[in-house]
């Protein structure tokens, strides 16, 4: 070990909305400058930029716009919602290896210009999609619903368990002025909502949002100079597992052993922090079943026990065993490919969440499962 510890020193965020009101490039630049200001830094300090491959603005163009004089580390991670935590992880790797001092991570989404990838299928579909799209398995909700029904079948999970996730997220969003959906819902509301891709219904599906988020990753030493307490990056990991097909991951020997199972193994393998040391989690919730599967994958309960965990109120702030998605998550706060979940992880560690877990030491954040994924353990600096 070099002895360098990476930390998040600053965060920038535009309000989540149905219309960002500016191009993605402008939004990205704004939140990066916000994050740098919070870190007590300027663009001259930045020497690294990492991005998700979905991002419309390139690393070099960020440097061009901001006048970053000497960009020494830049890279990208693919697979959409699976990439968020990995970007923070790659930034931490670069900082801890001494390759870079100050690395910026960003995501800006404007649906009016960015669009939805699945809706852009042409009349001929190639690659992996040729095995699913011609048969009407087109939308992310179809792809995950297929896995969800198998999960129900093998593990005794019910749609009511999915409802528990949706209700918990909404109750947390009701406390968060920045959340897009704040009216409380009940299990009855969940069961009565229109089906989208059975077994999944409306409230099992994340929102569609515009938003922009950025983080500044640097050494703990430099992070101490910021306006906010440093958020330690205690562990980060990626994972895929065998014979994975992105989104239509039905082809491995055990598809219920999701990419998150492998990311979790890699995460805990390199960390002194285990599931029992984690008081709060932001679990990727593009669709509600993924939360239950992730509870199991990240070791917060045994295999097949995710439903019972939720039914016992385990996800609920403040009394649950593990308050989950305390800002409302992708189901009720906003959907920006999980970058809002990282932001809420930062708030929990700083003690500024609207559903703050008392005495929090560690918060786990996961990126999307069903795709090559990643996860973080964020820790308080005492």
């Amino acid at each position, binding site marked *: 070990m070099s002895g360098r510890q990476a930390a998040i020193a600053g965060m920038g965020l535009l309000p989540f909305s149905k219309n960002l009101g500016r191009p993605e490039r402008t939004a990205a630049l704004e939140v990066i400058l916000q994050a740098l200001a919070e870190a007590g830094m300027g663009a001259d300090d930045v020497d690294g930029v990492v991005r998700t491959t979905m991002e419309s603005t390139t690393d070099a163009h960020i440097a061009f716009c901001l006048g970053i004089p000497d960009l020494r580390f830049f890279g990208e991670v693919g697979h959409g919602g699976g990439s968020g935590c990995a970007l923070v992880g790659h930034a931490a790797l670069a900082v801890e290896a001494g390759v870079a001092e100050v690395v910026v991570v960003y995501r800006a989404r404007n649906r009016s210009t960015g669009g939805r990838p699945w*809706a852009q*299928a*042409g*009349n*001929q*579909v*190639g*690659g*992996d999609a*040729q*095995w*699913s*799209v*011609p*048969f*009407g*398995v*087109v*939308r992310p909700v*179809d792809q995950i*619903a*297929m*896995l969800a*029904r*198998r999960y129900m*079948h093998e593990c005794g999970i019910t749609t009511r368990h999915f409802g528990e996730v949706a209700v918990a997220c909404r109750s947390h969003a009701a406390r968060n002025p920045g959340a897009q959906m704040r009216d409380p819902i009940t299990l009855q509301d969940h069961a009565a909502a*229109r*089906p*989208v*891709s*059975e*077994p999944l219904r409306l409230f099992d599906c994340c929102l569609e949002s515009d938003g922009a988020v950025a983080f500044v990753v640097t050494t703990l030493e430099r992070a101490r100079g910021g306006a906010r307490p440093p958020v330690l990056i205690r562990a980060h990991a990626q994972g895929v597992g*065998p*014979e994975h*097909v992105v989104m*239509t991951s*039905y*082809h491995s*020997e055990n598809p219920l052993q999701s990419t998150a199972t492998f990311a979790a193994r890699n995460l805990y393998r390199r960390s002194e922090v285990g599931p029992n040391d984690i008081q709060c989690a932001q679990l990727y919730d593009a669709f509600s079943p993924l939360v239950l599967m992730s509870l199991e994958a990240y070791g917060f309960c045994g295999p097949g026990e995710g439903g019972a965990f939720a039914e016992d109120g385990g996800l609920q702030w403040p009394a649950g065993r593990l308050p989950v998605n305390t800002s409302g998550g992708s189901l009720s706060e906003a959907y920006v490919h999980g970058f809002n979940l990282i932001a809420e992880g930062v708030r929990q560690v700083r003690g500024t969440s609207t559903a703050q877990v008392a005495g929090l030491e560690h918060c786990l954040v996961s990126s999307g499962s069903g795709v090559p994924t990643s996860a973080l353990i964020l820790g308080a600096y005492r």
Partner: protein
Amino acid sequence: MTAAGTPPPVADRPVPRRDEGSAPFWEACAQGRLVAQRCTACGRFRFPPRPTCPACRSFEHRWEDLSGRGRVWSWIRAHPPLLPAFAELAPYIALVVALDEDPIHLRMIGRLEPACPEPAIGDPVQVGFERVVDQVIPLWRLG
């Protein structure tokens, strides 16, 4: 948007774009046959097709005819909002079939014939085919 009173044009359903790895599968469909890649070094089936065997890493393989029989591994019923090409079929049932020859390594996504009742996981299914635009793709039925 189309002008009021003008029905929108019916969109064509998306069809597979063949590549060097997938062409034998789609060409067999056009002849009413369901086939899969099988490693000639270790004998393992694999799907979707790829150049190498993930078990023994051999490039050697052949395409084998399958019985077209399998069981429902999972299924969904899709409702709008959908791509225009699928909206006219809604609600429709899509499924994953575990093929009898190797239910672990041969799982195929497909669509269930509209006349079929709601399936259950484990139900037996039999392949048939449907013409979509200029191609032929599998269409499954119960039984």
